[in-house]
């Protein structure tokens, strides 16, 4: 096996080495204005190598697998690593072997054989709008992780992702996504129907005035905000000053519980081990509003004088399945008397990661809330606020959890709709 060959050749030459290999088969249908615009089919193989010699850290990947290329890559790696300088705050990887518990619901053969054209057609019909565009992506992958730390583990997964944006006209749109490793939880028609309903409700939007509003964020929009909290929790970002959570351990930041849980059965980001091979577990990042921990690999944990949370990516710690603990109320019950309902956002950008100042643009259906009901659609607004304020003012959380993986939310976030009080809404002035 190539992986063993690489490991065998490297482990006597360097201090730490992890070899991660993967092969994926996937297919993609892109539909535009109710018609199929492109189909895609791919087989991609990849081997990533993480190696450390006398604290010199390097990373490479191989996508060409003949023996000559492999030997050449290993020789280059050994030459390259010896020319580097030490990362003084590198403290090693976890030592195995480890025992793993398989996570159910991550593989479903039937998903690979599903008739994709039918699925897309059914979704377009279910949306029942003037036009809709989107993507259906199905994949099957095998991956293996072996290392000099006595780790050897393999995973087989399937994945389905569907994104649909519905248009009643240029300004009346609705967007929904669904992702699942199994077919039974992959209801594209329901997803399309919801996106269609939002688009229909969003017709004839009006301008509104800037100011402070109580805002309800749909899971599509809320996930984009929560993702910035998950990313800020990475110890790498904390030590890079790219986190608004620096120096906040033990501090009360709000009234919600946020966990990273890679062990959820059927979770899109679920995995039994992190990139060092450490068995994953549920990590409570924020417990009833109090920041409990950052996300660590073995090395950052030692630097921060704590234990790994099993969140190693090959280079930096990261979250796998971020989950906002749901509340008890229905969506309708968390609607304030007066406010704004945002169904999606995009282009979230920070002015300063350490202070948390940011803005993001609501897109698709945006609505005024009047007398506790969703009413008039509005347009051309921006959320210009601070993430610490957003966390502090998150006052109600509904029970309509949805797992979101989208263009805007690159790592999976499960969240219900939530209400944030007094959000700063701005608008173009000229």
């Amino acid at each position: 096996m190539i992986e063993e060959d690489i490991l065998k050749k490297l482990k006597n030459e360097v201090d730490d080495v992890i070899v991660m290999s993967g092969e994926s088969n996937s297919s993609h249908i892109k539909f535009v204005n109710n018609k199929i615009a492109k189909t895609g089919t791919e087989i991609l193989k990849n081997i990533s190598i993480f190696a450390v010699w006398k604290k010199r850290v390097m990373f490479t990947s191989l996508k060409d697998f003949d023996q000559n290329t492999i030997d050449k890559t290993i020789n280059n790696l050994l030459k390259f690593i010896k020319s580097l300088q030490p990362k003084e705050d590198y403290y090693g990887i976890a030592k195995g072997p480890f025992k793993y518990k398989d996570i159910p619901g991550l593989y479903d053969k039937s998903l690979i054989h599903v008739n994709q054209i039918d699925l897309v057609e059914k979704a377009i019909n279910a949306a029942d709008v003037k036009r809709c565009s989107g993507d259906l992506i199905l994949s099957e992958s095998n991956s293996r992780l072996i290392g000099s730390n006595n780790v050897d583990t393999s995973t087989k997964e399937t994945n389905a992702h569907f994104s649909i944006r519905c248009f009643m006209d240029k300004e009346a749109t609705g967007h929904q996504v669904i992702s699942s490793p199994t077919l039974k939880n992959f209801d594209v028609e329901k997803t399309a129907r919801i996106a269609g309903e939002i688009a229909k409700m969003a017709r004839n939007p009006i301008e509104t005035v800037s100011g402070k509003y109580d805002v309800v964020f749909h899971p599509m929009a809320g996930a984009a905000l929560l993702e910035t909290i998950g990313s800020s929790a990475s110890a790498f970002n904390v030590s890079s000053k790219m986190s608004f959570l620096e120096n906040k351990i033990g501090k009360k930041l709000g009234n919600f519980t946020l966990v990273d849980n890679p062990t959820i059965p059927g979770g899109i980001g679920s995995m039994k081990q992190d990139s060092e091979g450490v068995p994953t577990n549920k990590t409570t990042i924020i417990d009833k509003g109090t920041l409990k921990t950052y996300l660590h690999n073995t090395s950052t944990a030692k630097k921060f004088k704590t234990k790994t949370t099993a969140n190693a990516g090959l280079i930096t710690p990261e979250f796998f399945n971020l989950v906002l603990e749901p509340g008890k109320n229905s969506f309708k019950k968390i609607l304030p008397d007066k406010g704004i309902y945002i169904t999606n956002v995009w282009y979230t950008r920070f002015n300063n990661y350490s202070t948390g100042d940011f803005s993001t643009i609501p897109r698709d259906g945006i609505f005024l809330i009047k007398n506790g009901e969703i009413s008039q659609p509005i347009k051309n607004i921006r959320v210009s606020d601070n993430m610490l304020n957003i966390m502090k003012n998150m006052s109600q959380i509904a029970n309509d959890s949805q797992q979101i993986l989208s263009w805007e939310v690159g790592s999976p976030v499960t969240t219900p709709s939530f209400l944030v009080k007094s959000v700063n809404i701005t608008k173009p002035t000229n």
Partner: protein
Amino acid sequence: MIQEDLADFSVNYALKLGAKYAEVRLEQHKGTSFLLKNGIPEVSGFDDTLGMGVRFLVKDTLGFVSINNLQKELTKDLIKKAFKLTEDSYKLTEKTKLTKEDVIKTKYEVKQKIKLENISPEEKLKFLKGIDKETKQAVGRFYSLSDDVMHKYYVNSEGAKITQIIPRTNFFYYITVNNKADSLQRFLQHGNVGGWESVKAWNLSEKIKDEIKAMLRNLKEGKKLKPGKYDVVVAPEVTAIMTHEAVGHPTEADRILGREGAQAGESFVTKDMLNKKLGSELLTVADDPTIPGSNGFFLYDDEGVKARRKLLMKDGKINEFLHNRETAAEMGTKSNGSSRANDYDKETIVRMSNTFVLPGKTKEEEMIKEIKNGVYIKNFMEWNIDDKRFHQKYVGCESYSIVNGELGKPIRNPALEITTPGLWSSVDAVGKNIAHFSGTCGKGEPMQGIPVWFGGPSLRLKNIVFK
């Protein structure tokens, strides 16, 4: 090794299966990357990748295959599998047409004065360490350097065969400057096509030191801008991002036709807005991939079409859209060579290259001199724009008040929040100066980041309301 014979075979194999048209991009990348965080080499690496993308038109539907295990039998199987999926899509197809374009056979290589392969990893790390040593006044220093040499072979069933060898360099920094509990952050990217000589020309230590000095002054003396109406002068870095976001993106024909509607979005611009006024007649905006050394450089696009300068806006009017062969066919015109994919495994779509406002006749000093009470925005930090490209926000990083024709005290984070017609109509002076800036533009599903330049001169914007 680039396996041109496999690429040629794949084109013929697709035709044999019944394709009306087929093309292959065989793409190899070799590069290195280095990341220094607060003086510590976080991670370094090298990459050597090779893969192939095959696109074909069957039953008026586009099919695409990507593979990096370049064995003939495996490739045949995959193309056959992809054919079935594409043919099965027939009942829902949008009936894609591609324009007829000149058939080109050529080879070229961008020369490197100092070859990237001759610069050792030690030297590259030493280069980053040198910048770090000079910029320690910043409490957070995140410096990344990467290079890549792309060798691309393009072949299509119409007879085109194009080989392009393009080296690239890239530097990204992210710094944090503190004054007690107060902080400012700033990032910028540098990128060129060329060898190590382009890295040396960036003069990074001096530029970053100057920025830190300005940020420290801003932290100590900067005041919030009083709400009101001001005349604003934006320096080239701000003009550059505005041009990319609010002229380049809205004139991409695939957005206008709805092809990117699901993710990257559509455009407030419609087909019938060609030759319609979008802004001041002082404004002309070009997109030009043929500028030697530029970050968005290429001479032939990923559909084998010769690249050329396009005027997206001419004298304030929308003049030309960015097209590939698919959008051009739909709008009854010719492709203008704007089709790009960021690697072999991504579909080629309409992209910008180097997009910039052409210089005008006014000196920046003259623009400032004529303002009694205004704002000068040199560079920016936070920005965003809606998915129809209609309203946007740019938040100044290094910014100053303008009082009686002269630069005054620093201003903290002035937020220019404006509509696209509002922005371009407010321009009453275009500078003689010009500068270009590098970026990685995101579009497509899956997301494709592609190297671009954006640029322009200083601009004066009249009567801008700040809240």
